[in-house]
């Protein structure tokens, strides 16, 4: 059973957490890389630290781990 979603469903709530943060990481990381390496950083304070890139990387790693760890598996019972 997918923990937190209910009887008869295979998707865990942690899978939703993973897929959502992974999606955000995948959106932010390329933009952050483009801004950093293409010298297009927005004029924010401390933009020299390239927060979009690093935060995107962190979300990608976090989301990737949760997505992989809680992905629906073929042997799951009660698949919706």
């Amino acid at each position: 059973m997918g923990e937190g979603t209910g009887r008869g469903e295979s998707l865990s709530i942690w899978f939703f957490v993973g897929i959502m943060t992974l999606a955000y990481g995948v959106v932010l990381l390329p933009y952050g890389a483009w801004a950093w390496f293409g010298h297009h950083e927005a004029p924010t304070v401390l933009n020299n630290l390239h927060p979009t890139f690093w935060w995107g990387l962190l979300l990608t790693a976090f989301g990737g781990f949760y997505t992989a760890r809680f992905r629906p598996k073929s042997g799951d019972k009660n698949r919706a």
Partner: protein
Amino acid sequence: MNPAALSMFALTTQLTSLSALDITILLLYFAVVIFIGFYVKGSTNTSEEFFLAGREMSAWIAGLSFVSANLGSLELMGWAGSAYQYGILATHWYWIGAIPAMLFLGIVMMPFYYISKTHSVPGYLQLRFGEGARALSATSFGLMTILMSGVNMYAMAVVMKTILGWNITFSIWVGAVTVAIYVMLGGLRSAIINEVLQFILIWAGAALIPILGLIEAGGWHNLKAQIAQNVGNTSYTHLWANTGTFASNPMGVNWFGLVFGLGAVVSFGYWTTDFLVVQRVLSANNLRAAKMAPVIGAAFKMAVPFIVIVPGILALSVLKNPDGSMMHLVPGDIAAATHQHAYDEVLPLMLIRYCGPGLLGLGITALVAGFMSGMAGNVSAFSTVWTYDLYGAYINKKASDKHYVAMGRWSTVVGMLISIASAYILAHASSIMDYVQALFSFFIAPLFGTVILGMLWKRATKAGGFYGLLAGTVSSIGMFIYVHQGGKAALAKIALSPDAQPMAENLFRALWSWLICVFVTVVVSYMTTPKTDAELEGLVYGATAIPDDGATTLWQKPIFWASVVAVVFVGLNLLFF
């Protein structure tokens, strides 16, 4: 909710706009929350599934949802503004104003809520004190919940208008319809899943602000020194050191009010008897999970000041005008007249300071997620109390389970529509919002008196519970009117000091109304006939054999983890003393 946050309604100037990247992030969020509603609809066919998520949530999920339902964006932005206004004192509303109560709920009260198999807090009152207490608490809770939902909804719309220039009606309807869809489809299950997701998103969107802010300020010690220099004293960075008297701190409260008014009454009232949050814990899949959920929630709640209070304090040091001078934020009404920035804008201002395209969208999504988790908490709790404790108890007692589920879905929609209507009505009468906020608090303190005596004192009788609750509520309303009519002199009498500020009124009013509730309950109980132990089984300490929660090792015991959280809580208070 923080009363100061209501000044948010006076915000006027648009702060920024979203890029395509930001809009993509926001749309992604809306798509996922709606998908979750449709996804879990198939497993919410019975009333147990719709209203209590099938009682199959793990401790982690129930615990995160428990915190998230409380963490509306108004809460986030309001307290960030208060941190700017009052300094680290605002942290009390997250630590002493939450942690002891959450641990008490988990370890002492949860077994009674859980083993009584009640569907709601008014439902527990009905089992313990009869129909009168249930009717009183269910009616007041339903009314206040729906009004507060409207206030929150309008506040969200104004924030979106202020930050992004969005149309108010558009914001109200987008937020409300989205929440209505996923709660109507998936009930509490859908609300809980989304709340866990929202909790993660709030951190993902807001945690960068304190991290970058502390880097810019040069660390905590440098920050303290800069604030002391900017405001002229050290009271903004001490939790307790300046609470010896009302006059010695910027909030105008003293340690007695904080410990006994906030820590012992308001906090215990909210966290242990407000059904909006208790409902999340009732969804736990076993007694140990039900006891662990508030403990886990407390651990996360202790961390929330990092993303709420720290940004507010940081702004006292790093927030500057374009010309490099310090930016001075002002109360909402002054901001509206002078076109300055208001206290409640501190979080968006800090967000804009550090976050460019993409990160800004994530931060805005965090604010929207916060609003929606708060709204879903209100509407799902309203739908449950309406269906079980008003409709099912007094209007249609013998309907089928299927009928009650349908009523739950319809009441979600109707509740949301009433919230929208109240949002528009309240929008044009800003002073009413203070009254709505006060009305909500009227029922919290006495309700805690009634519930705690009901759970821990066998001698409390049906009449004692009802008249105690009534007396506490009426006295709270009376004190509120007295202070609003009598002004500073009346406040000085209620808070026992001429130096007391409005924040002290809430704390001392709660304390007095709780004491009155307990006094009346005790007196009336001794004048009336108590129930036998057999009648109180499963409801009251001393008449109930608490079942084993199944914990075999130390690591599985809720009391062990509650002790760990309590030690960290004490340590943090000493660290920031």
